[in-house]
């Protein structure tokens, strides 16, 4: 076996070993450090199963969160792509807008949440808007950057070949902007997700964030961990999906440079 193959095997083993290791530490801590009130992995899994099937509390909260998330994210995608495209094409607008957009990124947007409550009330609308607010900025920034960076040479090539706008888009604009735009969409999802959860944690009557805060109050550690696990699984799964789609699309369309 070559050194390289051995290395790759070790890496794959290691990747699987990490969650296994965490589970082990968890099991040990919950039995040894009783004062932490940590439930065992097994007990947590039972609660998880129950929440998803029998009493279904997890499922209903999950449903609410997902609706808010999807709506907010979709809005962010549409708005973000359009705005990013316009800003990318027009140098003047971009130079004006760029500092605003980049700086808003750095603000702890949670503290602006009360404004959303004022505007949209305590229901799901405020979370949708908040998720939108979080998710739209990375999409704008990265789309804007992608359009700006389309190598001038490719555009000149397109023009010299007298491509019509549709062809220009399909053969040149789309492939070269794809990586950045995909990254923007992925980050947009992650941020929208955080926005929705934070909003639910701050002021809500339903959703996973709300359930998190409720459980904290009554000290249901199992429920808390269940919710965290569900959130983590969704986050990782969606991100993985993005990476996979990105990989497929890029391999097919984009060549060197």
């Amino acid at each position: 076996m070559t050194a390289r193959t051995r290395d790759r095997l070790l890496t794959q083993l290691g990747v699987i070993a990490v969650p296994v290791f965490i589970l082990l530490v968890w099991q040990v801590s919950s039995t040894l450090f009783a004062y932490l009130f940590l439930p065992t992995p097994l007990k947590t899994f039972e609660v998880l199963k129950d929440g998803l099937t029998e009493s279904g509390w997890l499922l209903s909260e999950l449903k609410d969160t997902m609706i808010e998330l999807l709506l907010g994210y979709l809005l962010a995608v549409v708005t973000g792509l359009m705005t990013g495209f316009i800003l990318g094409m027009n140098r003047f607008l971009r130079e004006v807008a760029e500092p605003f957009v980049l700086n808003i990124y750095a603000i702890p947007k949670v503290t602006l949440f009360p404004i959303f409550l004022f505007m949209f009330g305590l229901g799901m609308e405020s979370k949708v808007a908040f998720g939108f607010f979080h998710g739209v900025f990375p999409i704008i920034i990265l789309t804007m950057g992608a359009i700006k960076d389309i190598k001038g040479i490719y555009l000149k090539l397109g023009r010299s070949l007298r491509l019509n706008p549709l062809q220009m888009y399909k053969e040149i604009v789309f492939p070269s902007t794809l990586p950045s735009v995909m990254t923007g969409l992925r980050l947009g999802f992650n941020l929208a997700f955080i926005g929705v959860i934070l909003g639910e944690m701050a002021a809500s009557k339903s959703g996973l964030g709300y359930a998190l805060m409720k459980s904290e109050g009554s000290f249901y550690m199992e429920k808390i961990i269940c919710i965290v696990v569900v959130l983590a699984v969704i986050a990782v799964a969606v991100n993985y999906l993005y990476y996979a789609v990105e990989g497929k699309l890029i391999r097919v369309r984009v060549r060197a440079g």
Partner: protein
Amino acid sequence: MKRANKVRMTKWLVLLGSAGCLEIIVRAGIVRRSTLTPVSEMFVTLWKFFLPGEVQARLLKDSSIAANFFMTFGEILLSFSLAVLVGFPVGVLLWKWKTLGRILNPYLVSYYAIPVFALYPIIVGIFGIGMLSITFMGWLFAIVAIIISTATGFDEVEKRIYPQVGKSLRLSRWRIFVWIYFPAATPYVFTGLKLGFIYSIIGVIASEFILSTRGLGHLVRFSYSAFETEIMYASMLLIVIMAVVVNSALMRIEAWLYGRQAR
């Protein structure tokens, strides 16, 4: 030159224009005073923050607003420093031990996808409500950005010729690390530090908001529930100004650092 001025003018126009609109819609009665304060009054109230007296008494019996500000700032600095203290060496370690780096890579990359704030109840369960939890949240949020940037930065330097120059000058491995890798990786590491600091700010203030103990984040929430709209907006303004100033400054330094590498 002309265009740059036009851009700058437009930026100020947009800023002042929006502020002006907000001012008008309140004063004209389109929006109630209980939901929005005129922008001018936001600044006035903010100014009052730093003077003793009326504002403090109305809101907080035992601590001044300035104290809250310094508490938040202290937590930010503390969580950031600790994040650098742990994050930087870990980043270097992951760069040195390539296998370990490759094993942890998928986890590090998906770290920021997960709403870290969801862990807050667990953390409060362990550390209790207070400064420790808040600082820990800030630390958690900042550290992975620092780790990733550090590891990436050193990786980038390794791809260049500079370490070979050190080798040809017969420098020891340690000296190559200190005198070549370290300065060469500085721009990349700084990007990580910038992100880390921003995340510390966000982590701390967001946690204060949710947790409602002390500090600026708490101030916003508290004044919201106490219907003290003026104070709420003034606090928001303070947070926004602080974040923007810090971010702009860090972005400038970052641009300068990368500029030195110009080809």
